[in-house]
């Protein structure tokens, strides 16, 4: 029973599943457009797989909204940046640029780390000095850290520019100078004796934000903390680009972070266009190839058909997953090789089905009629046979898409994904491999899977909606 395009669309729209499917699909497409427009192409290589980019993010942190539902408030993540100093003090030739960061700390647990970063310093005569000091809620001040910018190199001419392509990041956490300063502070103010190495193992960030209770126990000190970063410059033309203070939290963002500190929200978003791309592209190529071979083989018959049949049969008898794993491992982890492999294993099923449809059609008299009016073979295949199998082929295309998305996720999960293109499967792979499930990092494990399922279901729903178009018997009688 033939239908033109308009009638087909009407039939499709009739079902609820189709509507839901289309709504989902538009959401997926919107997300993908957003990502493609706003993310750089080399996102994977430049950012996602670059641990230094995520250095200032808390590691394995649950999403920030967890604080709303838990009894104990986990410390939030603060990233404060100034491009201009809060005030400037002049003392002779010395110009002190002060960057003042105020933090109202109300969490029940201390931060997970502390670091600060200087971006782009230029000096003309004397190298600048940088100092970090903290004024705590208990009104006690500690000079935590100081360093001098590196001097001129042999043969270098002023102005001397430092830290502009690679910002200077200093981690208070793990720094022995800070540990020593804190050790002295504890002894001086609280009469507590702790060697710098002990300070280091408890954690500089922890001690800075707490009051000693007993010998080695610390209670969080809530209140206002003022961090001051002073940059001492000795020439009026000396410049500082950006100063950033990071008080590491234990929660972060909308979807939390993984063990490398990567913002999962960003990573998961990136997965949308990749998943759609893989699914649709692979599906389209496979469908075109499979259907094309099915039509050619079915119509031309003879040797051509035999050959195609044999190859399809051969491929169908190969267990899919072991071979995919084997070939992906040997040929390399590249998205195009993956697409290629999926296509190679995917076309036979469709070819066999299309071929049998074509065989049925071949005996129809209108084919003979077409021959009798002088149509060459390719004309018949293209204009007479193809339109009759087209609805089915299109439905198959939709139906194949989730299969490929799931296959790619499975391969990524086994570690065979393309590392330059982060996908949901890869996020899960890292979560599994780093033991995330064994320590209960649910925000890392659950969302990628849900996204995979949601994307796959979208296409399943649309395919379900297309069934009446393809299979006339299922149509409702008007």
């Amino acid at each position, binding site marked *: 029973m033939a239908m033109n395009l308009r009638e087909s669309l009407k039939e499709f729209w009739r079902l609820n599943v189709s509507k839901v499917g289309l709504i989902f699909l538009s959401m997926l497409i919107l997300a993908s457009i957003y990502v493609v427009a706003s993310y750089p192409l080399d996102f994977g290589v430049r950012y996602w797989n670059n641990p230094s980019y995520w250095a200032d993010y808390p590691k394995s942190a649950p999403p920030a909204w967890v604080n709303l539902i838990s009894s104990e408030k986990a410390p939030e993540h603060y990233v404060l940046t100034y491009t201009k100093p809060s005030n400037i003090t002049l003392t002779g030739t010395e110009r002190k640029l002060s960057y003042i960061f105020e933090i109202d700390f109300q969490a029940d647990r201390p931060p997970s780390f502390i670091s600060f970063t200087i971006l782009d310093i230029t000096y003309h005569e004397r190298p600048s000095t940088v100092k970090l000091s903290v004024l705590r809620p208990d009104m006690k001040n500690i000079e935590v850290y100081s360093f001098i910018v590196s001097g001129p190199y042999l043969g270098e001419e002023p102005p001397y520019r430092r830290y502009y392509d690679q910002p200077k990041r200093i981690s208070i956490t793990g720094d022995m100078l800070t540990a020593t300063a804190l050790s002295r502070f504890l002894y001086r103010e609280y009469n507590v004796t702790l060697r710098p190495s002990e300070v280091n193992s408890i954690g500089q960030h922890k001690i800075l934000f707490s009051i000693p209770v007993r010998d080695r126990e610390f209670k969080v000190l809530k209140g206002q903390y003022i961090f001051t970063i002073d940059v001492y410059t000795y020439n009026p033309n000396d410049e500082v680009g950006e100063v950033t203070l990071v008080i590491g939290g234990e929660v972060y963002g909308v979807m939390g972070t993984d063990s490398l500190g990567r913002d999962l929200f960003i990573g998961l978003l990136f997965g949308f266009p990749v998943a759609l791309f893989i699914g649709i592209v692979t599906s389209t190529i496979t469908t075109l190839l499979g259907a094309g071979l099915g039509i050619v083989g079915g119509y031309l018959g003879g040797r051509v058909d035999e050959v195609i049949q044999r190859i399809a049969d051969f491929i169908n008898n190969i267990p899919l997953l072991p071979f995919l794993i084997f070939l992906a491992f040997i040929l390399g982890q590249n998205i195009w090789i993956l697409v290629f492999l999926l296509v190679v294993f995917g076309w036979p099923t469709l070819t066999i089905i299309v071929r049998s449809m074509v065989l049925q059609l071949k005996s129809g008299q209108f084919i003979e009629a077409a021959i009798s009016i002088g149509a060459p073979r390719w004309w018949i295949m293209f204009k007479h046979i193809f339109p009759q199998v087209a609805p089915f082929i299109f439905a198959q295309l939709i139906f194949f898409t989730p299969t490929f998305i799931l296959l790619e996720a499975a391969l990524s999960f086994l570690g065979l994904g393309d590392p330059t293109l982060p996908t949901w499967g890869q996020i899960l792979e890292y979560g599994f491999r780093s033991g995330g499930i064994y320590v209960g990092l649910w925000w890392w494990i659950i969302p990628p899977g849900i996204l995979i399922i949601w994307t*796959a279901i979208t296409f399943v729903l649309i395919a379900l909606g297309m069934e009446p178009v393809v299979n006339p018997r299922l149509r409702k009688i008007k």
Partner: protein
Amino acid sequence: MGLARTLIFRATTLALVLILVVFFMVIILGATGTSDKILQAMVNEEVMMLRQALAKTIKDPEELNRVLAIRKQELMEFYGLTKPWYIRLPDMAWRVITLDLGKARTLKTFAGGNKVSEIIMERLPNTIILVTSATAISALVGLIVGVRIATRVGGLLDRISSYFSAVSYAIPTWWIGIILILVFSFFLRLFPFGGLYSTPPPTDPFLRFLDMLWHAVLPVTTLVIALVGVWIYTTRTIVLNTAQEDFVNAARAKGFPEELIRRRYIIRVAAPPIITNVILGLATSISGAILTETVFSWPGIGRLFYDAVLVMDEVVVIALTYIFTLVYVVARFILEVLYVILDPRVRY
């Protein structure tokens, strides 16, 4: 008889497929240089370790190098590197096909031996346990639910099952496994995180068995969740189609009791396609077990395959691929045979 002829022909074709598959793997291993690369790396590593060990005793650098060169040559001969890959690998391939599996390069059995056949046989039962129990449970549930909802089309159970079947197609099995671990092992502490036995395993055989069962619950559940949707749907479709056939209506018109109709007419006729689905399901789930075994660290051949690919232990990889393909091919063949035997309509 045409039947026997076709089947023999088919069997030979499939055997050919099997052999072609193995050789195809071999060609890929060889032509991409992977095989050479890996073996060479192993040789170099052994030579390096030897250098460190011998440097303490042989002080003369020339003497040291000479000894090492000899050893290196010996190693290269041992690993077959002196012969080009298109001689060395097909030779191995033939041995694998005739099931003369030899020794693994890097992997070991639990006891430390390296005979490939032992390595595989140690783990095969584990996979079989997993796969058969999962298939059996899915089939049982699938059949019961499928038949029930087929006779009560449109009911609540029917609609729930339909949605579930459609959705379960979209769910990655292995992710379910991970979630189950998260919920039942981490949060609820009801089941172990993975593995076959606890460490150390109980000495009493019965307790050991129970321990294994306890470890098997989550992986089997994962597989069942993945499989049962298909089972229910297939059963429902087949039973529904058969129940609508005219010969069933004829039986009803004759006044047979519903139960009899159900048993003798519907189920027995629907049995062939259902059984063929069992076999196909079993065959495919063996390779599907790769993912589940990886998630649960279940020491079966699926996990073994993954480990072997990771270190590219050639012999094991080829041997296992051979076994997977063999199982798959045999299953499909039995399928075709069964289909022809059980369904008289297909005979020609």
